[in-house]
């Protein structure tokens, strides 16, 4: 019932926007910007500052909202845009990739290390994040959407345009790789 009401509210907002009511778009931004920013942050490997990506996502949404037919929820639609923008950004970053200097590596390591027991946990979690970052893009996307974003399987399949089987295969392969990389952490934690 609540979902129905939400869909109706989204449709109303889109209709208002089509009629030229900017406040409807403000409302959409208000409702979804935090989730879009969180997803972008996770997909890009937790860089912290995702302002540019969020701006790009909402500019694209602003330009394409009039064509939005409501086949999926507004949230899924915005997430699709976010995934695409992050992919573009990822490829742009790959193009600009440069070797990490020893000083930069030390700075990252010292940021992750900070005091005894808590520091050990922080270091382990930082390793988890790095392992996720090292995953191939298609595996990283399903991990981020499933475990970090908490989306349903059907939602992920719709968003990425893949079948549930494909999604499950990707998820299993991603987990296997993570286990390979984080074996000692998992043993320690268990």
């Amino acid at each position, binding site marked *: 019932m609540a979902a129905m009401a939400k869909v109706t509210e989204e449709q109303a907002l889109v209709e208002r926007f089509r009629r030229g009511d*900017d*406040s*409807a*778009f*403000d409302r959409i*931004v208000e409702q979804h*910007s935090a989730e879009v*920013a*969180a997803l*972008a*942050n*996770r997909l890009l490997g*937790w860089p*912290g*500052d*995702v*302002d540019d990506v*969020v*701006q790009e996502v*909402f*500019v694209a949404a*602003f*330009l394409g909202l009039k064509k939005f037919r409501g086949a999926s929820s507004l949230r899924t639609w915005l997430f699709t845009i976010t995934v695409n923008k992050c992919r573009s950004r990822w490829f742009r970053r790959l193009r600009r990739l440069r070797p990490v200097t020893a000083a930069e590596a030390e700075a990252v390591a010292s940021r992750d290390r900070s005091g005894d027991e808590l520091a050990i946990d*922080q270091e*382990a*979690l*930082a390793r*988890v*994040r790095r392992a*996720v970052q090292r995953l191939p893009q298609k595996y990283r996307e399903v*991990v981020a959407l499933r*475990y*970090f974003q908490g989306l349903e399987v059907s939602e992920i399949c719709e968003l990425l345009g893949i079948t549930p089987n494909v999604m499950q295969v990707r998820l299993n392969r991603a*987990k296997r790789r*993570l*286990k390979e990389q*984080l074996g000692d*952490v*998992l043993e320690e*934690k*268990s």
Partner: protein
Amino acid sequence: MSEELMERLLAQADETAGEPAFRRITAAGIRRQARRRRLVRIGVPTTVAAVITLAAGLWAIGTRAQGLQPEPQRIASLEEQVRRLQAQNSATLRLVQEVLEKDRQDRRLASLNAELASIPDPMREIDRQVDKTAFILVYQADKLYKELNQTESAVRAYKEVIQLFPTNQWADVARERLSQIEQRRLNKSDGQKGEARWEPRNT
């Protein structure tokens, strides 16, 4: 167990990464940004096209100007080439003129030779005229002697032929006539009467 642990670890890793930072977004801001992007999307290619067109135009003008004003070395080379061609042309012209002149001279020489060949031998002509004159004198002398009985005049005429043309055949004839006249005079003086009249030979 391991699956759950991993999911928990992933969740913890995400939670401890911190909240993402981003500016507050408004419809007005997005509209401005969209307008700016549209402007860039249209303006940049247009500007690039205009710059390329301008550059191409300038390049074309520059190339044409460069074509109209060649380098000094190229000018010198072309001038040298023109001079060489002019010299070659002059030499060819001179050769043609020489050949034509020689041909003209050859033709003139051939014409003169033909003219010369048409002219009779002057010595023979002189001989012929001499022979003719001598014959006329002998003929007149014969006429004086035979028809007019002017023997003295005839003798003078024969002597004149012998004097003027001593080697001519008609001088021999004149001598023969004088000899006959002399003989006749001798015979006449010897008293021979009724002697037949002498007839000069047919000339």
